[in-house]
C-alpha cells in the first residue's frame, strides 16, 4: 500500500516535471524542473527498496550534476538567449516519433513483465507445508548474489521470520516466501551493495576510475585558454 502511494505520487511528479524540462523556455527553469525529476526518481528508488541508490541519486544527480548545469547556464548568461517559440514541421514530426517510441517501449516492457512474473495461480499451487525446491533455489541465488552464507541466513534472518526455527530447510513454504521477501528487501542496504561492489564488480569499479581520470584530463584540455606567451 505504501509502495503504491509512493509510486503514484512520485511517478506523476516525475513525468510532470520531465515535461516541464522540455517545455520551459528559460534554461534555468528547465534545470530546476530537472532537479525535481531527480528528486522524484529518488522517491521511486525508495519505493523499490533501493535506499542507497536513492541517497546517491540525490547527492550526485540533484546535488553535483545539477549544480554544474546551473553554473554553466549562469556563467554563459543563457537566460537572454531565448528564441521565440514556433511550431515547426520538425517538432510535430518529433512528437509523433516520440509517441511511436513510447508505444514500442511500453509494449516491450509488458513483454518483459510477462517473461518474469509468476502467475498467482502457479504460486498458489506451490504453497505447502514444506519449503519447495524452487524457493531453495531462489535463496541460493540470493546467497550467491549478495555473498551471503547459509549459516548467516540461518542465524540472522530465519529467527526474524519465525522465532521457533533456526534452519532454512525446516521452514514452511509460506515462511520461506516471507524469508525471500525479507532478503530481497535487504538489497538496497549499503552493506550488501558495498560487498557486491568490491567483490563481484571490483574490476568494473576500478575501470570507472579510469573514466573519471579521462574526463578530468579532457575537461582541462578543452577549457584551457591558450595564452600567447604559453607557447614559449
Amino acid at each position, binding site marked *: 500500500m505504501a509502495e503504491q502511494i509512493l*509510486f503514484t505520487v512520485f*511517478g506523476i511528479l*516525475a*513525468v510532470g516535471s*520531465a515535461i516541464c*524540462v*522540455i517545455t520551459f523556455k528559460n*534554461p534555468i527553469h*528547465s*534545470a530546476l524542473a530537472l532537479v525535481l*525529476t*531527480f528528486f522524484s*526518481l529518488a522517491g521511486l528508488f525508495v519505493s*523499490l*527498496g*533501493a535506499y*542507497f541508490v536513492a541517497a546517491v*541519486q540525490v547527492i*550526485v*544527480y540533484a546535488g*553535483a*550534476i545539477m549544480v*554544474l*548545469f546551473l553554473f554553466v*547556464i549562469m556563467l*554563459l548568461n*543563457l537566460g537572454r*538567449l531565448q*528564441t521565440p517559440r514556433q511550431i515547426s514541421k520538425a*517538432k510535430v514530426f*518529433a*512528437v509523433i516519433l516520440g509517441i511511436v*517510441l*513510447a508505444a514500442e*517501449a*511500453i509494449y*516491450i*516492457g*509488458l513483454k*518483459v*513483465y510477462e517473461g*518474469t*512474473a509468476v502467475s498467482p495461480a502457479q504460486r498458489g499451487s506451490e504453497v505447502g507445508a514444506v519449503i519447495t525446491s524452487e524457493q531453495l533455489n531462489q535463496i541460493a*541465488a540470493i546467497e550467491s*548474489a549478495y555473498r551471503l552464507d547459509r549459516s548467516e541466513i540461518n542465524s540472522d534472518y530465519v529467527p526474524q521470520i519465525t522465532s521457533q526455527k533456526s534452519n532454512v530447510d525446516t521452514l514452511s513454504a509460506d515462511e520461506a516466501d516471507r524469508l*525471500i521477501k525479507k*532478503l*530481497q528487501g535487504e*538489497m538496497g542496504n549499503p552493506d550488501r*551493495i558495498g560487498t*557486491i*561492489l568490491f567483490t563481484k564488480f571490483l574490476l*568494473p569499479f576500478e575501470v*570507472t576510475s579510469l*573514466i*573519471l581520470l*579521462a*574526463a578530468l584530463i*579532457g575537461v582541462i584540455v*578543452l577549457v584551457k585558454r591558450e595564452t600567447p606567451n604559453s607557447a614559449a
Partner: protein
Amino acid sequence: MALQYYLILSALLFTIGVIGVLIRRNAIIIFMCIELMLNAANLAFVAIGRELGDASGQIFVFFVMTVAAAEVAIGLAIIVSVFRHRETINIDEINTMKG
C-alpha cells in the same frame, strides 16, 4: 507494485527525453534531456533487479551515474568552449560539420 508499472514509467520518461532532444535547439537543454534518458534507464535497472532478486541492477546504476557525471563534465566543457568561439549554443547555428 508490479514491475510493469515501473517499466511503463521508465518508457515514458525516456520518451520525454527523446522528444526533448528532438524539439529543443539549446545545447544545454539537450544535455539535460540526455540525463533524463539515462535516469529512465536507471529506473528500469533497479525495478528489474528487484523483480529478479538481484542487486546487480543497483550496482549498474552506480556505473551509469559515474559515466553520466564524466559525460556532463566533458559535455559542458565542450559547450563552454563552443560558446567562447561562436557566442551561441543554438545547435542550428553550430552546423559547420554539416555534411
